[in-house]
């Protein structure tokens, strides 16, 4: 079998060295009733590479890939063009098949990448520091809430109504077990994010306010005002960025008063991949560093005085502190962080700014076209590359009808909020540099057809 180098001769010789008659002698500690006598019945045996490829390709072929049709989905996962060199570089065996850099002398490649990544994320977010990544935006968001609790020694979190419902769901699930109180309300179909409502909910028991920026409907909350209100009450502002490309056009949350900034890095370098693996980004103020979860890479020197990098402040983590760790997290999103970092290195701030401008321009163009569809109105006054349209009918049905016409027209609010009938006519529409004139016209025409 192609992944097993041992030959029968090898096995026989090795058994001789070990002094066992058969390999089953080495499994003697397994109780007889639990020891299977042959391969598990009812399961296929080994297959050639060719056969496996054929099987997987057939499954892949059943799916409508985003690049094959007009595509307008966002809602926490974004499609941008990833330069060809990114995928080549992350497939170098020295990156792909390396381990966590616990032996730093032979892992300076991984470690220097993490140091660069941390710096890029911190600068993008406008925070002092950032960690070496977490599983994804939603779990990073929960970890931020938990960290705010540790820092403020309070246990109530106020979630803005514009926070992604999966993120809300994740936080509420975890809070059931930690006893944290979570305040949350579903969003309303209003043109502006509900800044006043969030501020009104802050009190002396609030550990943090969690604000998505831009929010789930594409609106842009007033982070500076919310930060001021939070700080006045002794609470922290946690800003959540699900589309980092947006930060090419709007101000970094750290510069507007956010104490912790978390996000989803998937839109740069990582690709849609049907939901994972994604890339949790986590940045915060320097003074909170020792309360941060996740791995951290730091600069140091070696015995010859050469600059080098190591994982550091490990006493926060599970392998040292065990039950007293800041989090139980072990892995980071290694290879995804590398892909993000390479893409960001190719873009630079200049390229990110242009990317955001193009994505935004396409959104303006799409909004203008959809506003011409009878019965359809654009909700947002402000947006970057994702906005909400209000249809004269159920949006979830409309999305399915559009899919039948081979247009992936967006994410219905009914899919995200199945229990909120007043949101049922809302549709999230997202664009990027990949969106073409033909795509926008196809969406407009298909929607007209569906609504007719």
């Amino acid at each position, binding site marked *: 079998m192609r*992944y097993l180098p*041992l030959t029968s001769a090898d096995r026989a010789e090795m058994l001789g060295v*070990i002094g066992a008659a058969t390999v089953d002698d*080495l*499994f003697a500690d397994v109780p007889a009733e639990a020891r*299977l006598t042959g391969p*598990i019945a009812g399961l296929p045996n080994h*297959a050639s590479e060719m056969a496996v490829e054929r099987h997987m390709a057939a499954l892949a072929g059943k*799916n409508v*890939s985003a*690049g094959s049709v007009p595509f307008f989905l966002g809602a926490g*996962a974004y*499609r941008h063009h990833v330069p060809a060199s990114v995928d080549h*570089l992350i497939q170098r*065996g*020295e990156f792909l098949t390396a*381990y966590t850099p616990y*032996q730093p002398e*032979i892992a300076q490649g*991984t470690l220097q990448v*993490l*140091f660069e990544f*941390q710096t890029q994320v911190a*600068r993008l977010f406008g925070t002092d*520091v*950032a960690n070496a990544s977490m599983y*994804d935006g939603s779990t990073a968001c929960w970890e931020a809430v938990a960290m705010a609790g540790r820092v403020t020694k309070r246990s109530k979190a106020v979630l803005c109504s514009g926070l992604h419902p*999966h993120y809300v*769901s*994740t936080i509420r*699930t975890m809070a059931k077990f930690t006893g944290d109180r979570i305040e949350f309300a579903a969003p309303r179909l209003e043109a502006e994010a509900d800044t006043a409502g969030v501020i009104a909910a802050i009190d002396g028991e609030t550990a943090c306010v969690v604000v998505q920026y831009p929010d789930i409907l594409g609106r842009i909350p007033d982070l500076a005002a919310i930060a001021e209100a939070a700080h006045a009450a002794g609470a922290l502002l946690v800003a959540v960025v699900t589309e980092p490309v947006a930060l090419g056009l*709007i101000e970094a949350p750290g510069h507007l008063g956010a104490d912790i900034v978390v996000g989803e890095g998937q839109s740069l370098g990582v690709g849609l*991949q049907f*939901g*994972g*693996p994604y890339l949790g980004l986590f940045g915060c103020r320097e003074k909170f560093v020792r309360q941060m979860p996740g791995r951290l890479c*730091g600069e140091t*020197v*070696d*015995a*010859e005085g050469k600059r080098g990098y190591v994982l550091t*402040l*490990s006493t926060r983590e599970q392998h040292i502190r065990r*039950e007293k760790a800041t989090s139980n*997290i072990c*892995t980071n999103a*290694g290879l995804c962080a590398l892909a993000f970092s390479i893409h960001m*290195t*190719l*873009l630079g*701030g200049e390229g990110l700014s242009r990317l955001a*401008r193009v994505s*935004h321009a396409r959104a303006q163009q799409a*909004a203008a076209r959809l506003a011409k569809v009878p019965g359809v109105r654009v909700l947002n*006054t*402000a947006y970057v590359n994702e906005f909400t349209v209000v249809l004269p009918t159920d949006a979830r049905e409309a*999305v*399915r009808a559009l*899919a039948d016409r081979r247009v992936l027209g967006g994410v219905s609010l009914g899919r995200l909020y*199945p229990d909120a009938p007043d949101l049922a006519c809302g549709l999230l529409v997202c664009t990027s540099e990949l969106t073409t004139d033909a795509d926008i016209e196809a969406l407009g025409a298909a929607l007209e057809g569906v609504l007719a």
Partner: protein
Amino acid sequence: MNAPNASGWRPEMGSAEAAPNQTASGDRALMLEEPLIFELGVPGGTGVDIDAPSADPLPALGKHLRQAIPPLPGLSEPETVRHYTRLSRQNYAIDLGPFPLGSCTMKHNPRLNEKVARLPGFADVHPLAPQQAVPGALEVINELAFWLIELTGMHGVAMSPKAGAHGELCGVLCIKAALQARGEDRKVMLVPESAHGTNPATAAFAGFEIENIPAGADGRVDLAALEARLGPDVAGVMITNPNTCGLFERDMKRIGDAVHAAGGYVYCDGANFNAIVGKVRPGDLGIDAMHINLHKTFSTPHGGGGPGSGPVVLSKALSPFGPLPYTVREADGSVRLVEEEDAASEHPQGFGRMAAFHGQMGMFTRALAYILSHGADGLKQVAEDAVLNANYVLRSLDGELDAPFGQAGPCMHEALFSDAGLAEGFTTLDIAKGLIDEGFHPMTVYFPLVVHGAMLVEPTETESKAGLDRFIGSLRSLARRAKQGDPALKSAPHFAPRRRLDETQAARKPVLAWKGDQGE
């Protein structure tokens, strides 16, 4: 004419231009130093061609428009490719040689996995696309779920956890939810001292108090001590099997029976599943939940630290409490996703959602390709070769390194050694750093905690006999040097891109980001 030079006099020749082993660049042939991107790129540079539109963004952004471009360097494509290629060469990797980290299962990462994961129908598909547009993606999740259930002999599986530790959390939260459903509030979780750090960290997060389960002299859980501790305040146990000493817990079934009789649940840490996959079904041993590290047993790449994937197989007792979302295969063969909107009618006792979207799809495609490649017979051979390789290492080092459980019987897929017998002042760390010079990644060191100076060696089944022999030869040499007290070992590694790094300084004065353009 012999003129012996007893005084050691040497002629004065004046200083040379450069000693022969110095270069002007600081590089040495293929050993290449590489600065940071911040030291290479200039603000305003970019390696991506984007024509920014002339349209004015102000109408839709107003006061939110940022004033300055993000302070991030951009490099051209040639500079970028060179930067990351040069960095990659400072990494050891499975592709280069043995990576014998105990409990990490650093097996070969097949390239077929990479190919199928990148098929557009898997890679370029949005998680919130209407289900009618992505039936094949849902089938992949369900097909992998089926295999995991069959291989473990369990009832259900939660596919959504993002990594092993996340899977542990899933299993522990299922236990907590099950207890709450019974109206019980049991406070204690029993965890062996030898457990991976994520076990107590996870249990603590879920609100449990951790108590230690002692081990017997044979390195396994002390069943009598465990049975004596069980009671109405004990929610369950977290057991790794095979355990972190590389030994199979013979009493696993009796442990499970005792825990169940006392009203608790058994969580099994599946990190060591590679030792028994295809040969033993943990479900037959009475466990209630087990996470599976797809990046260990099922060959998905470690990627320098992640991403992982940690599906959790569940017993009939715990399946009703599993998280959302999950897949269901209908009678007509189609697969649908069960999310929050169906929870009330189909999964009312589930404990909730653990993360956005549906799980680590990119790892599912890779793991499924691997499982289909091996099949039931191949996976059984995987476990057998993994255990054979570890025992070959164990026996080959008889008399060279102390193996605390080596005389009592065979190990499973990993061999455990201690630092007993090393010369005064010589440590496991010195042997590890010496292995680096020998051209290998060190084994796991100082874990498990129950053995002094632990060295845990897991070769995996993808190591050839010739590769093992080379590794054994190096480890034998290092063991002898450490016992004899060879001083050169104390300053190893000598040949790696870096010498030993000052971790104390890194922690005392953390420098976590480049600040070179901020006057620091």
